[in-house]
């Protein structure tokens, strides 16, 4: 017996889940094959009156289905078959004549939770690592082992939909409250409690007590439930804009089960699993999942030096964000700013970030206090004298950055790293006057730092290997997905974003409509439209970045728009000074009785910088192709020039830093999925109609000619 180990405790059989040679238990086909005969044996064994399912792993029950196994199931029908195999195991457990108790410590996700949901009683530990959820939707799939039927049966349709459509994590106490689990115990009592519960169930003295709340019964167990489904569909349509099929697949399965019964629901679930598993969306989301997982491995891990204390220059939104993600993961932080008031503001931002978590009891006020105590505020450079790494987040100005670098080098220990969180200034320019240029590096975070998952590390020709390895390690510990790129104007992310925004402004100059362009790009899967993005980032910042990048583009014979510079001179800075492409006047945004109006209004005045108020709606496909492909093309150039060391970095950077549609997988996955010929044809058209800048990068051409893909 390889995966399952049997332990007999009197009249209770414990089945230990212990996938050999792995830290994590996952659902594999092999598991099912072991389970069935074992269950048959236990059913016959008259000494066994009840069963406990428990994991032998330190911090997981079953972390989900084996995703590689899914990826390899290429034969048509094989995914539906997998789903049905899973379903039959789950049904076998659910129908087992003796009580089955799931004892859960650590993650029970996806197939793991489906397994637990098929048992007759669930006990979880209050361990911080214990987390439940059905995250299949994040991979473009539906739960395939009975989850779409068993979850509504356990917790009701609304809660089950919430779980499956968001894929969110559910922690022990909320799980108990919603009926997903039946008992919460401390980690050391899990086995005892589970055996005891199993025995009591066999004696008929214990059963699941959860009662669905009255509101749930009224809404879900009557014809009213059709309202739930229609509302959920509306919300899902609004949020996915039709780009993601999985949520609809999930809704179909649940609706089918609710109207035509469990068997029909299970049949739909298996079919849906096959259908969704074959979608390009699911393929790309799974690719991304592997890319992100792979990126946690630090290529320079042997050279990492210890970082005891992190310094952050600047207590603005960026600085406080960096301080927060560092302190949150245990780093003592010194946050320096010029004024005490700015520091107080930064400290408040950090404190407020924990408000919701404290209110929801995810962390205690004491744990919050511990995190905020790790951030020391100072106005004195001397405060940094014990930092091993200082990350500057001061105003984007080369002279200023050079000055703070010099000020830091004066007080920092010999072996300290100076990192600049610049979004566009070349790191080698900042490091030019440094005493220790080998210890200068770029750490480009994205705003808001606690939410945005990417960290772009920029190395110059001089940056020492241990320095980049150490910065990488800090980034991973801060919870970021890290890519390492070479220095240059705009590095990677800013460099590919700049032409895209530039192209959006060209569209305006050609008579395009602000809201239309934004809407089209959102429709195609970007989280925000490009014009809104300019307002959010700041028109002045955009102009500054455009200025930094301009020589690169003009050298190629391109002519970027100067309109942002002009707008800045006229006082337009975007959202921050409420003068941008949209109106941000809160008074005006409030309608009747102070309710905030949903849509922000376009600032019609700004059209005078783009040729007047006469606007037309351009072809959506043209908008999308121009904006997306100019970005993709620039990404390819970055790979060609060695700014990027791999297509994976390029895809992760674009998706996680810039919101490139995840279901397209990133610029390089997108190129691969279009195919070389189609790519060349598209660029050919664009170059003919809109000029030189759409000449495809050499590497795109050569790959297409050689019929070579980037992956």
């Amino acid at each position: 017996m390889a995966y399952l180990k049997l332990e007999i405790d009197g009249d209770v059989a414990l089945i230990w889940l212990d996938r050999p040679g792995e830290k994590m238990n996952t659902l594999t086909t092999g598991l099912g094959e072991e389970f069935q005969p074992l269950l048959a044996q236990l059913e016959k064994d008259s000494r066994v009156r009840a069963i406990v399912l428990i994991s032998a792993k330190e911090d997981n029950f079953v972390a989900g289905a084996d995703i590689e196994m899914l990826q390899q199931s290429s034969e048509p029908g094989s995914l539906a078959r997998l789903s049905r195999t899973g379903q039959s195991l789950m049904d076998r457990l659910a129908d087992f004549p003796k009580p089955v108790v799931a004892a859960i410590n650590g993650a029970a996700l996806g197939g793991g939770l489906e397994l637990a949901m098929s048992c007759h009683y669930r006990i979880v530990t209050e361990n911080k690592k214990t987390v439940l959820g059905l995250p299949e939707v994040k991979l473009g799939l539906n739960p395939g082992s009975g989850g779409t039927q068993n979850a509504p049966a356990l917790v009701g349709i609304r809660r089950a939909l919430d779980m499956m459509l968001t894929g969110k994590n559910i922690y022990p106490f909320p799980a108990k409250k919603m009926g997903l689990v039946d008992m919460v115990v401390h980690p050391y009592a899990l086995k005892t409690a589970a055996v005891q519960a199993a025995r009591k169930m066999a004696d008929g003295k214990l059963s699941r007590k959860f009662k669905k709340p009255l509101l749930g019964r009224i809404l879900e167990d009557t014809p009213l439930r059709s309202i739930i489904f229609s509302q959920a569909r509306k919300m899902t349509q609004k949020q996915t804009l039709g780009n993601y099929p999985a949520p609809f697949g999930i809704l179909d399965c649940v609706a089918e089960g609710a109207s035509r019964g469990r068997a029909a629901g299970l049949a739909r679930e298996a079919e849906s699993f096959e259908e969704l598993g074959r979608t390009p969306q699911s393929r790309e989301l799974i690719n991304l999942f592997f890319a992100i997982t792979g990126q946690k491995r630090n290529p320079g891990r042997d050279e990492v030096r210890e970082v005891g204390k992190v310094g952050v220059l600047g207590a603005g939104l960026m600085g406080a964000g960096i301080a927060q993600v560092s302190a949150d993961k245990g780093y003592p932080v010194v946050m320096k700013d010029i004024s005490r008031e700015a520091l107080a503001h930064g400290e408040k931002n950090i404190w407020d970030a924990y408000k919701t978590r404290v209110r929801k009891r995810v962390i205690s006020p004491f744990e919050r206090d511990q995190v905020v105590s790790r951030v020391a505020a100072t106005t004195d450079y001397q405060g940094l004298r014990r930092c091993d790494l200082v990350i500057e987040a001061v105003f984007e100005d080369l002279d200023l950055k050079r000055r703070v670098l010099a000020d830091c080098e004066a007080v920092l220990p010999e072996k300290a790293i100076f990192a600049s969180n610049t979004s566009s200034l070349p790191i080698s320019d900042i490091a030019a006057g440094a005493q220790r240029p080998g210890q200068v590096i770029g750490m480009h975070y994205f705003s808001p730092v606690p939410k945005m998952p990417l960290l772009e590390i920029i190395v110059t020709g001089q940056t020492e290997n241990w320095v980049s390895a150490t910065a990488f390690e800090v980034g991973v510990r801060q919870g970021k997905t890290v890519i390492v790129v070479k220095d240059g104007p705009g590095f990677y992310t800013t460099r590919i974003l700049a032409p895209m925004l530039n192209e959006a402004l060209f569209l305006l100059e050609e008579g395009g409509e602000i809201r239309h362009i934004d809407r089209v790009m959102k429709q195609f899967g970007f989280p925000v439209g490009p014009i809104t993005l300019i307002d959010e980032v700041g028109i002045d910042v955009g102009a500054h970045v455009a200025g930094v990048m301009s020589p690169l583009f003009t050298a190629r014979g391109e002519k970027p728009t100067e309109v942002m510079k002009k707008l800045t001179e006229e006082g337009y800075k975007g959202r921050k000074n409420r003068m941008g492409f949209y109106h941000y006047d809160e008074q005006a945004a409030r309608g009747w009785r102070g309710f905030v109006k949903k849509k922000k209004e376009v600032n019609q005045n700004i059209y005078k910088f783009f040729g007047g108020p006469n606007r037309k709606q351009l072809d959506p496909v043209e908008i999308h192709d121009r904006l997306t492909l100019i970005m993709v093309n620039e990404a390819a150039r970055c790979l060609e020039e060695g700014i990027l060391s791999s297509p994976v970095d390029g895809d992760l950077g674009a998706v996680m830093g810039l919101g490139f549609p995840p279901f397209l997988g990133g610029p390089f996955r997108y190129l691969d999925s279009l195919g070389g010929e189609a790519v060349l044809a598209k660029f050919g058209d664009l170059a003919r109609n809109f000029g030189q800048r759409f000449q495809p990068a050499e590497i795109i051409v050569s790959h297409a000619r050689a019929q070579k893909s980037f992956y």
Partner: protein
Amino acid sequence: MANTGKGLRRAVFVDGARIPFLKSGTGYKDLTSYDLARLALTALLNKTQLPGNEVDWVILGNVVANINTSNVAREAALAAGIPHRVPAVSLALACISANKAITNGVDLIRSGEADVVIAGGTESLTDIPIRFRKRFRQKLIESQRYRKPLDYLGFFKGLKASDFLPEIPAIAEFSTGRTMGQDCDRMAARLGVTREEQDVFAARSHQLAARATAEGFLAQEIWPTAVPPRFDLISADNGFRADSTAESLANLRPAFIKPYGTLTAGNSSFLTDGAGAVLLMSEEKAAALGYAPKAAIRSYAYTAQDPEEELLLGPAYSTPKVLAKAGLSLADIGVFEMHEAFAAQVVANLKCLDSDTFGREKLGLPGKVGEIPPDRLNAWGGSLSLGHPFGATGARLVTTTVNRMIHEDREFGLTTSCAAGAHGSAIILERLA
């Protein structure tokens, strides 16, 4: 005398820090003594850049304890990032709790038990425990044993309406039943301390505090703090009034003994929230960690008197005792910091020290201890004006003494305080920096 440290290791004062002292119910009104202690400990760690893992002990004074954090030092130390393996203790010795915390730390260092001790105190007099009355509390405890619904009917039996009223603790002496203010007023009358003397001294305290704040002297010990949840920046004490004069104070009515008493709200210390801490080390450890300590602890003494008649005369008893231990005379001391619970208490103690009768009869000396020159006493204000968070005041006094020694270029400083229970404390510091 063990605590002169002869033959033992020398304990040094590296630096001290406190958060601003605020009138109760103002800037710290949302916080508890735990929060204040956490802020003071992080202030000290940040100011000295001491890595938390170097600490061997944390000792904090706290008088009005919050039942949720009965060992407030431990909770605050953990929250402030001091490693969990570092033990922490809270102690209560009324207004000299922090003094005791500091000298306990000195003992641990001298005896070799510890190399690095953080000592200080915390107090929130905004967050005081308001309790049910004894009879009601008894009933609540009894009711836990109730089994049948009918039992609960018995709950109200024997309870008077007044038993349901909450009980706000008075700052009263348990043994005498008198509040501090009443007792001090009584003593002022006994020792002939006049209302005018009190008002003059109180006005002086306020004016000196205002000056020391304006000139930035107190900035050396205050760590500007942004206070959750609003994070308004608090960088100075808020209790002193620069425009206080003896004349303006003379208009106030007696606060404790009416109508003929002499103590008023104006010449008494006010209810205060605050916390402070000092960093103590063995001389060797300070050198090893690269610190230049500001002072060494030369000697300390504690006394206890008759609570009935000498409740607030601690300084008059402990000062000669510590001088004798240190082998110094009053004239050797360049900086005096005497705790100002009430102006009357300071004046009374100064009188006793300067009295031949007191010296002979109470101290068994040939004559008086001597006169403390006014210009050497409490030159940066005192508890009357800066405030008096009971458990924390000692940390302020010691830190101010040291900073004044450096500022005024003096070799020795002495800080002395009185405390409930008729205790006295005196510590002599020797300048190193």
